[in-house]
């Protein structure tokens, strides 16, 4: 079934919309959740929460792109759960690894921390992504939004792992330079 019809069903409070959502996007949402949580049961719960959240929010929201809407819900719910687990010292998924890479392009911990305006930062990231070559942008988003492994990205894009690694490294460097230039970082240190 096409997405607009599913949204119509949800909008008119037809529970069939949820079934259609599950039928079409469960696997997709599961993958997103699993990459973050690394646990099947947790991922299933998060995915169920996603569809419930979709039911609760449509209406009033009427997403133009259902797939992305569900992806965002899943990611948010999974990250929330992930953060709780991290606080409880439970093991996480690929988030740590991905974020460690990003962290490496941030200032060292003892440097003065700037107060971050996240709206501006997101806007900056959007601009940054817009100006990347498409393939590089896909790599970046797959790594830091979808938390995919380097190997997974390489397979997905028909590239070698080294190509992916190097491109990501260069892209992070470019991002760090931009962040520094825009005043988000006092110092840029590289490891």
């Amino acid at each position: 079934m096409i997405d607009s019809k599913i949204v119509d069903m949800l909008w008119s409070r037809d529970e069939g919309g949820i079934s259609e959502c599950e039928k079409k996007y469960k696997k997709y949402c599961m993958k997103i959740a699993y990459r973050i949580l690394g646990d099947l049961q947790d991922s299933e719960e998060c995915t169920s929460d996603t569809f419930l959240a979709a039911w609760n929010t449509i209406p009033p929201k009427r997403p133009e792109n259902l797939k992305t809407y569900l992806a965002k819900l899943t990611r948010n719910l999974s990250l929330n759960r992930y953060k709780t687990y991290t606080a409880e010292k439970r093991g996480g998924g690929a988030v740590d690894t991905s974020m460690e890479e990003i962290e490496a392009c941030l200032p060292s911990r003892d440097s003065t921390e700037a107060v971050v305006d996240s709206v501006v930062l997101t806007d900056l990231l959007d601009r940054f992504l817009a100006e990347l070559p498409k393939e590089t942008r896909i790599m970046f988003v797959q790594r830091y939004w979808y938390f995919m492994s380097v190997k997974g990205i390489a397979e997905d894009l028909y590239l070698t792992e080294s190509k992916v690694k190097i491109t990501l490294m260069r892209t992070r460097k470019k991002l760090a330079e931009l962040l520094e230039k825009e005043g988000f970082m006092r110092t840029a240190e590289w490891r």
Partner: protein
Amino acid sequence: MKKDDILDAISGIKDEYINEAVPGASRRKSSVWAKAGVIAACLCLFAAVGFLIPYGMNKPAVKPPVATDTVGSGVETTAPATNETTGMVEDSTDTEDVQNTPAIGGTALCKVHEEIYHMVPDFLAELRDANEMFEWANSLKIDESKVKSTTECPYEYNIKLLIDKFGITKEEFVEAYPFTSAGAVDVDLLYNGTAEEIDGYYRNFGYFSIESKRGGHYDYLFGEIFTAYYDEIYDMSKNKDMLEYIPVPELVVMLDIDRDELIKYIDLATQKSMETHGECYTFDYDLDMLYGADGEIILEIDADMSDKDIDEMFCRVGRYADNDVDFIGNSNDTAENKPAIGGSGHCYIHHEIYHSIPGWLAVLVGEDENHKWCQELWDSIPDSNYNDLESCPAEEFNIKAFIDHFGITREDFESVHYSLQYCEVDLDVLFDGTAAEVEQYFRNIDELNIYGYKRSHYGYVVDLIRDAYADELDKLETNYYHGCIPELVVMFDIEKGELESYIRGATEKVIKAYDGKKYAFDYNIDMLYDSDGRVKLELNDSVNNNRKLRNQLDEMFCRIGRCADNDLNLIDNPDAGVKDHCTVHHTSYHMTPAWLIEYIGIDNYKEWKNSLSADGFNVTDGCGLVSNIKKVIDRFDIPAEVFTENCTYPLDSEYNLNLLYNATEDEIDKYYRKEENFKYNVDRHTHHAAVMETMWFEYMNEFRELQDPYSSFYTFSIPEAVYGLNITRDELEEIFKRAADNCISVHGVCYTYDYNLEMIYGEDGVSFEPLEKLLSVNEDDDPANDISSNELREMFCRVGRYAE
């Protein structure tokens, strides 16, 4: 800054980027249109060697920008310019000021010339003062009124002017230009032709579409090797910032790549070309110059040979079939220069398709097999044949022979071909006719050409639609290169009258192009629209990236002939339009909110909903839905208080309770038909949501404490948030402004509620006296009597009756 800050910021990136990167999504973005194919191939080609410098930057570049992603990663790799201020790569989309648009090759702006015509290639820039060159090029005008025109060029600048201005000699040019520009530059013409001739030459997309595509394949080949040996090649390069270009034969020697491995990379390049462009043209790579009979590498590279010499020998570019560099520079089109596969140009008896093996067809049999077959036949043709214009020079070399030789079935053929591009051919004849019948059939050049002219009409219609919706196409989450009119109509909800105006526009162009003849398909408009001229066609997801289904759509729409029957497999609901849909009321008329269903009871609601029958219901005026909010209220006797208690203001502000409870059914029906009654509600909601988002980002940690950790949504109102976070009136007004800016940047407009700041702040704009009074209105300590978030929200937004 902490990693969480980045994590949060990444969470909010645009949907289009998230969607674009969906793991496991097919990356096959095929390009039906020759132009698009050429452009992509060229970009890829040029980026690989990093020799192009985009023209059109506002400021002179300090140094030539380089291909940041270097080579081999595929089509999207370009040589972007670097903005000196931000260090960011310049955006080449059309949303920027025209003068700021680097527009690699100008293709983003100029739709009439081949891209290289408007470029400042760095192989030329290196011959003179590059900065001076860029400054001059940038000083020339771009006519905004001609941007993206399909008939007029917006650029004053062109490569001929550059050569003349800086006195670059032909010798200098020939010495400097790299192999990969082969096919994109006719040096003789460039130096000896008139401005008009050169202009005309660069309008010839057909020519470039073959030559550049071959160059594109070579670039993919280079890219595959580069990707596989990235570290080694990177180590070899002296300049780590801008990797050197190394010809493939040289790479083979240095990296000790054996024949099978090289063939693998050639196949991968073919695959990439097919995936990216939907077709593939290649050079006739001379593997024998690299490998001996037992597969050992035999090539010895002479130190005096340039990269270009090596490339040309390996690729056997056109006339250089023999491994003899002496041929270089000979541009005479003699019989020895046998035309490459893919269009005869030498046969005056048959329609050119007869002697063409399209790339998409060759893929069915494999690159090697295809080449072997073609080469054997080609070699067997006596050169003298080319001198006789009265007979076919290559009788054995034809599409029918190819199909028969490889046993290609019609089904296989139809699974890969672009029907519109191949609509000249009657497949019944091709597959069921004898060789003689097929040969005879292809002698009807004039008749067959008519389909080509009709196809031109179709192409013009597509061009006009693409021009009209260029911005929307640019914003698409996936690259849409397909020119399928029915798909475009559905995608952009193009009304019948509008489509007809495009068809008329295309007809004018055809008349001009074909001496007054009105060639066009007999478009099946009725398959697209209902009787009121609204789009009724609905396409399901299976059409995406499915060539066969797109072909069917095209064929149904164009009524090409052999597929005139409407195969409805790809259409979800051919009768869609009115039945089961409503096109006249505001959506909220037919919507039952979750809290109302909860109040009614889901089972009761479903039972009632199922009992509604469309029998006897007249679908006459665009509304095909039986239920509506008034019916729900009446059926379940819902008191107005249920709305006031449960509505999530301002989100539910579409409900006009005075009307719903006091007006007649007809009046309510009419109210929900008026678009203006609901025009700004969504925009106001958007601003309200943006305010919450902005506060969330501004006061992230404190906000989280107010928020349910497992909820992505806010349960508290703006007044509560303001009070909890101790936000002053000035700060809140600044947040409003930022939210408004954000809305405008995304949606182009911003409408807001008439926010009631006086209910929160005292006169000093800091104290919360009025709000505190409201919050402590309940003196009996009964939580049930507390003012709810919803009530606060409604009062703050002054929704409806709280407008004062």
